[in-house]
């Protein structure tokens, strides 16, 4: 007896939300899948999970995109359907593994809620009324608008060809660069925002400005680790997570975890220090004090490589950053600070882990600087067991013929920010200035791809108002996200298992080049991003050029008296032909890049294994049933810097920008929560990435919703039990969420997983499930880059 449960039926049977979802959608639901009924659809499996067969199958190398790590795998394809994703043993970065999300990528590919056809809005923004159109009609709607919204041509005409009236945003991924080329270099707007300013901008900035790199921690060979605020057991980073937990728990890598919460990483610690949110800087300064006071640092290394070390020593000692001082601020005992500092400097290969993560506090840039300098004091840099600079295998860069638009004005969101990023800006400041009407010119259109600011940028109310203020919103994505539902034209993209992507190179200790190949053809009417860029460029190119000719005096001067033929040549030669970067397919471009740099054989190996590096056939050896050696020990890039290595303690140039030249504590950095309130901390776990994975059936099966962690003693006082619905309210919004009383969090703090609580009714599983933290996180920015500060919001909690 066999009872088949179709994907859609499963939803109806088991998800209470789906009823709400279904009724909210009109009878002509153009988002709904074609396979509502039990009938078989070619290219889509009949059941949610598909048992792999013993018959013939193709194994196609792919590169995972369910998070940012880019783990390599092989897709098992049986009769045009992917039945399983397996890890790729050849890639040194992901070391023959796929995590829960990587395995569940199949469910994103076959998600019944996927965007399937181009859509054009026919209702009001946010009401979910759309019309299915052809690609041609969708491109035309972007160019010329409809009776519901203006097209880009009219907007640019009204703005006299000021290209900067267009904003654009894009999430991380291998096709991101192409979108930047289209919008930034070819169409010519500087107004770009992406994930950097709502993620790790200060982390990168702090380490780069101090070490000249972010580096890679050699956790295979380190023997002492301080890991602060980076939850590697739950926010998986490859290869760090893979290496770290094979050696913690008394097996060679002594691990000290600092985190306000008792995380899965804390479970693996030798010591867990429950630091107050935002006070890590005081901890590092106090450890530095101990090291200087007791002269524990590597003086030879400091003399040779650490610029400004004497000033820094003087700075730390004169400020009296003692462990006793830090104890009151951090909630970490002076005894533990002394102990950790001394152990660190006595260890053979100690690492203060850089800790890739979002910006949590206002002082994050200075925290990163202090951490980087502290690591320098150990001298454990550019060598085995330390911070590795490594190498990257080069790939040829494409030359982009970028046109010049005389009418385009410069970006504006750097106002009041010390070192604003000219490329990726500040999401919060960009949005808020537009919303407040304080920009020097109007921004009237947003072109978006694979990005969901409704869930990612703090203060969702403002993001919604921002999207509503636009004359034109365009989205290229896979799923109908919360942000997608405020767009006028929606272009459905092929998922990462349906597309071949530009080759990528991943560097450091064991560098390699990786290739993502399409495992199956794009489903429905979806298209690969590079094809969308090309077709959109072709559609816009000539009409926008005409607009430039109409308003741009420089171009008018240049082209005065030109014949038709000469004008056509000018257009081509000066880069106004927008589609020119996509004349060749992605595969052709990949082949050219690899063959010209590494030869024919390399291209063959890359296609077969999905991974290439020089001598891979000779170097790669399976050392046991689970693990491989990628490079022989003497070929690993442990040491690449030599005398070039510099650790910059005193960045005097920063003072000109109003930033401390050396990490300094100030009183306003204290952790303070008013009586009766809580500090909100957010984070991730290993079964979800961001809002993009909350509609994944398999992952939802593992973690049905997000809960509010609240200290169990406080919960008892407030009569809150497990599963009770509570309201969490900040100055910018409120959400309801189910409670999880636990001792794993402090009495004055609460925690919720990021990425839940979707508002898009078209994502049946994500819709209304749990709470969206972005609704309640206050939109504050740190002063150095204008990056969003995620852990600086106090909230009230009450049972409802």
């Amino acid at each position, binding site marked *: *007896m*066999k*009872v*088949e*449960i179709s994907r859609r039926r499963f939803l109806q049977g*088991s998800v209470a939300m789906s009823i709400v979802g279904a009724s909210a959608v009109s009878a002509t639901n153009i988002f709904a899948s074609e396979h509502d009924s039990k009938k078989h659809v070619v290219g889509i499996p009949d059941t*949610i*999970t*598909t*048992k*792999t*067969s*013993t018959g013939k199958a193709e194994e196609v190398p792919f590169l995972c995109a369910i998070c940012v790590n880019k783990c390599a795998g092989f897709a098992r394809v049986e009769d045009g359907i992917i*039945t*399983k994703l*397996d*890890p790729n043993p050849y890639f040194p970065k992901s070391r023959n*593994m*796929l*995590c*829960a999300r*990587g*395995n*569940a990528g199949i469910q994103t590919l076959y998600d019944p809620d996927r965007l399937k056809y181009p859509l054009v809005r026919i209702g009001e923004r946010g009401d979910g009324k759309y019309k299915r159109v052809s690609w041609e009609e969708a491109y035309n709607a972007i160019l010329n608008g409809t009776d519901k919204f203006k097209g880009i041509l009219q907007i640019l005409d009204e703005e006299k060809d000021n290209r900067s009236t267009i904003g654009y945003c894009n999430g991380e991924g291998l096709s991101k660069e192409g979108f930047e080329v289209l919008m930034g270099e070819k169409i010519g707007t500087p107004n770009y925002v992406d994930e950097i300013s709502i993620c790790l901008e200060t982390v990168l900035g702090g380490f780069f400005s101090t070490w000249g790199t972010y580096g890679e921690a050699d956790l295979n060979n380190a023997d002492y680790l301080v890991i602060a605020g980076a939850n590697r*057991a*739950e926010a*998986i980073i*490859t290869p760090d*997570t*893979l290496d770290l*937990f*094979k050696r*913690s*728990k008394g*097996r060679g890598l002594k691990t000290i975890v600092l985190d306000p919460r*008792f995380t*899965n*990483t*804390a*479970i693996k*610690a*030798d010591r*867990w220090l*429950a630091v107050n949110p935002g006070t890590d800087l005081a901890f590092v300064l106090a450890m530095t004090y101990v090291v200087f006071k007791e002269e524990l640092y590597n003086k030879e290394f400091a003399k040779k490589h650490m610029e400004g070390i004497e000033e820094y020593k003087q700075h730390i000692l004169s400020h009296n950053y003692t462990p006793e001082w830090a104890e009151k601020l951090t909630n970490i005992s002076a005894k533990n600070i002394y102990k950790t500092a001394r152990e660190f400097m006595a260890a053979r290969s100690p690492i203060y882990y850089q800790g890739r993560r979002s910006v949590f506090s206002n002082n994050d840039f200075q925290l990163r600087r202090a951490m980087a300098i502290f690591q320098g004091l150990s001298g454990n840099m550019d060598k085995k067991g330390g911070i590795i600079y490594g190498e990257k295998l080069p790939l040829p860069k494409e030359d982009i013929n970028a046109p010049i638009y005389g009418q385009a004005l410069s970006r504006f969101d750097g106002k009041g920010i010390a070192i604003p990023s000219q490329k990726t800006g500040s999401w919060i400041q960009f949005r808020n200035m537009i919303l407040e009407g304080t920009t020097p010119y109007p921004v009237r259109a947003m072109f978006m791809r694979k990005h969901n600011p409704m869930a990612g940028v703090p203060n969702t109310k403002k993001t919604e108002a921002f999207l509503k203020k636009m004359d034109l919103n365009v989205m290229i994505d896979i799923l109908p996200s919360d942000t997608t539902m405020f767009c006028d034209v929606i272009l459905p993209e092929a998922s990462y298992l349906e597309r071949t992507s530009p080759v990528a190179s991943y560097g450091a200790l064991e560098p390699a080049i990786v290739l993502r190949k399409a495992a199956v053809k794009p489903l429905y009417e979806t298209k690969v991003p590079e094809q969308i860029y090309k077709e959109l460029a072709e559609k816009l190119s000539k009409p926008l050029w005409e607009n430039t000719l109409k308003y741009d005096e420089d171009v008018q001067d240049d082209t005065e008296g030109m014949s038709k033929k000469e004008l056509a040549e000018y257009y081509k030669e000066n880069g106004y032909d927008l589609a020119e970067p996509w004349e060749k397919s992605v595969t052709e471009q990949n082949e050219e890049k690899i063959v010209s740099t590494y030869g024919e054989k390399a291209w063959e190996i890359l296609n077969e294994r999905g991974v290439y590096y020089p001598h891979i056939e000779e170097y790669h050896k399976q050392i*046991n*049933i*689970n*693990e491989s050696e990628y490079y022989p020990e003497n070929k690993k890039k442990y040491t690449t810097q030599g005398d070039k290595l510099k650790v910059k303690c005193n960045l005097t140039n920063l003072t000109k920008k109003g930033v401390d030249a050396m990490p300094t504590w100030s009183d306003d950095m204290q952790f303070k929560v008013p009586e009766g309130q809580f500090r909100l901390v957010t984070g991730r776990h*290993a*079964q979800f990435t961001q809002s993009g994975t909350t509609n994944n*059936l*398999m992952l939802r*099966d*593992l973690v049905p919703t997000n809960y509010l962690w609240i200290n169990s*003693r406080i919960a008892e006082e407030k009569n809150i039990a497990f599963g009770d619905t509570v309201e969490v309210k900040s100055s910018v919004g409120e959400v309801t969420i189910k409670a999880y009383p*636990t*001792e*794993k969090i*402090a*009495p004055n703090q609460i925690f919720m997983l990021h990425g839940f609580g979707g508002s898009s009714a078209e994502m049946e599983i994500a819709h209304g499930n749990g709470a969206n933290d972005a609704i309640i996180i206050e939109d504050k920015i740190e002063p150095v880059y204008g990056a969003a500060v995620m852990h600086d919001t106090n909230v009230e909690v009450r049972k409802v």
Partner: protein
Amino acid sequence: MARYGMALDYKNCINCKACEVACKEENGVELGAEKHRIWVGGNNPEGQWPLLDIASAAFLPSQCQQCDEAPCEEVCPTHATYYDENGVVRVDADKCILCSYCMNACPYDARYVDDRTMTVDKCTFCSDTRLARGETTTACQNTCPTKVRTFGDLDDPNSEISELLRTREHFSLKSHLGTNPKLFYLT
């Protein structure tokens, strides 16, 4: 003919659930919290914040223990549960009458009802998927980020699992019951 077993370097486990998903996708296991062949056990830490007992919160990855003396096989009235030629405890879907004796008998809570086949199903060491294709690893082992599992032939003295069991201390779950599990936890 082999005698398959598995060694688990369980201290590596971070409870990421990659193994659970790989198992479900490979073997076409149903969704649903109760429908699992493999899982990770864990406890809330003892103590009060911030003085929590780290050791009390360890993770214990688990699945069918593939007992040499399997209680589920003993109690099965229709011989639906049987040992295959490699010593793997398997289920014959045609013979299973859903009496659920096996579910009660299993001391490890490793059996569940598959609503589609109406069988009390369980971990098969991927015998009818990966092993049947000639592969030498199970899905859970292969995908694991921290490489908890080593699967192999206990009768082959040169296998990696045999070597691990010779050189590393290990224990079995509920060994006092005399079930002789072929899953070994490395310390």
